[in-house]
C-alpha cells in the first residue's frame, strides 16, 4: 500500500537559459526516483518559460508521473508526484 506524500522538494530554475530547466528537472526526477516511485515525495519545479513548462510536463508525464501546472504570480509551479498518489490509490 503506497505511503502518503510527506516531503516536498522545490527546485527553482526561473530565469535560467533553456534547456537547463528541463535538464535540471530530469536530473532531479532521476535523483529522487526511489522516493517519487513509492509516493512519499513531491517535486515542485518553479519555471518562467512557456516552452519548458510544456516540455517538462511532456517528458515527466511520459515517465509515468502525475504532472500539474499551477499559474503562480509571475512564474509556473510544476508539481510532480507518483500517478497512483494523485489518483488516491
Amino acid at each position: 500500500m503506497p505511503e502518503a506524500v510527506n516531503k516536498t522538494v522545490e527546485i527553482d530554475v526561473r530565469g535560467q537559459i533553456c534547456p537547463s530547466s528541463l535538464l535540471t528537472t530530469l536530473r532531479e526526477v532521476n535523483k529522487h526516483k526511489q522516493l517519487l516511485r513509492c509516493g512519499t515525495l513531491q517535486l515542485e519545479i518553479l519555471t518562467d518559460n512557456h516552452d519548458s513548462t510544456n516540455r517538462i510536463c511532456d517528458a515527466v508525464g511520459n515517465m509515468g508521473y502525475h504532472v500539474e501546472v499551477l499559474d503562480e504570480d509571475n512564474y509556473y509551479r510544476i508539481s510532480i508526484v507518483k500517478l497512483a498518489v494523485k489518483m488516491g490509490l
Partner: protein
Amino acid sequence: MVDQTAIIVISAFLGLASGIIMHRSDFCVAGMFRDLFLFRHSPLLRSLFLLVAVSMFLFQTAQLTGVLNYNLPSSLYGLPALTNLLGGTLFGIGMVLAGGCVVGTLYKLGSGSLPAACAFSGLLIGSALYGEFHPFWMQLTQATRLGDAATLPQLLQLPPTLVIFILLLMAGGLLYQWQIKGLLVRPNRIKGYLQPWIAALLLAMIGLTSFTLLGMPIGVTTSYAKIGALCENLMFPGHVASLSYFQSHNFSYFLPLSRQTLHAGAGPVWDGLALVQLPLIAGIIVGSGLSAVSMGKFNRCFTVPCRQLLSALVGGIIMGLAARMAPACNIWHLFGGLPLLSLQSILFTLGLFPGAWIGSFIFARYIVQQ
C-alpha cells in the same frame, strides 16, 4: 525623398507584432536546432519548416504577380562561398550557448531575462570585433567562392517556379502528414499561449510585408554592428575610423515605398539599414515586454548561475561574430533567404546543424551544473 517616418512606423509595427508573437509562442529558433541533438526530439522545428514553406509560397506568388521584384545575387543574398557554411556552424554554436538566436535574445530580453541581456551585450561586442578582420575574411570568401549561381534554380538551370513548385509539393505532403498525426500542435497548458504553427504563419506574413514594403526580409544584425561600433567609437574614435568595415557603404537595396535605391553600411551612422532595423529591434523588445506584462510573466528573477550568464555572454560574442562572417543571421537566412532558395542561405542552414550539435555538447557538459 524618403519618407523616414512612414518607414520607422512600419518597421516598429512589424517588430512589435513579431515580439508579441514570438513571446507568446516561445518561438525559439536556437531551441529548435538544439533540441534535435540534446533530446533527439524537436517538435518546434516543424513550425520552422512550415514558416519556410509558407514564405516560399508567398514570396514566389508575390514575385509572379508583380508585388515583389527582386533578382539575386544582390546585396540581400550574394554568391555562395564556404564561409557561409563556416559562419552557419559558428552561429549554431553561439546561439545554443547564448540560449537564443539574434531575435530570440531580443524577445527574451524584452520579457526581462538576465541571460538575454548578457547575450545581447555579447552580440554587440562580437559584431564590433568582426571589423578587426573584415578584409581578411573577405579575401577568404573570395578564395572559397563556389561558382556564379546565387540560387538553387540558377544552379540547376531550371525555372524558379518549377523548382519551387516541386519543393512545395514535397513540403506540402510532409506537412499534411504531420497535420493528420497532430504533430504540428503543441500541448497547451498555459493561458495566453500561442500555438507555434500559428506563429509560423503570422511570421511568414510579417516577412512578406517587410519584403514588399521595406525591400528586405526581417533582419537585425547589421544594426548590432552599428550599435557596437557606436559604443567603440565613444572610446576609440580613431580606431573605428581606420577600420574599412565601418567606413564602407556597399549594402544597397531598393526601397519600394519611395522607389529609391538606398546605400548603407555597418558604420556608426544613421542610414538606410538603421532606418529599417533599429525600429524593428526596439519593436521586438517592446512587443515582447508588453506581452510578458499582459500575461503577468515579466521576469523578476536575477538568481541565475554565473556559469550560465558567462555562457550567454560568450555565446552572444560568437553569434555576433558569426552573423557578420556568414554573412547575416539565422533570421535573415531562414525566414528570408531559404524561401528564396539562396545558396548562401542553404549553406548557412546546413552549417547550423553541426554548430548546434557542438553547442549542445558544450552546454550539457560544461554549462548545466551537475
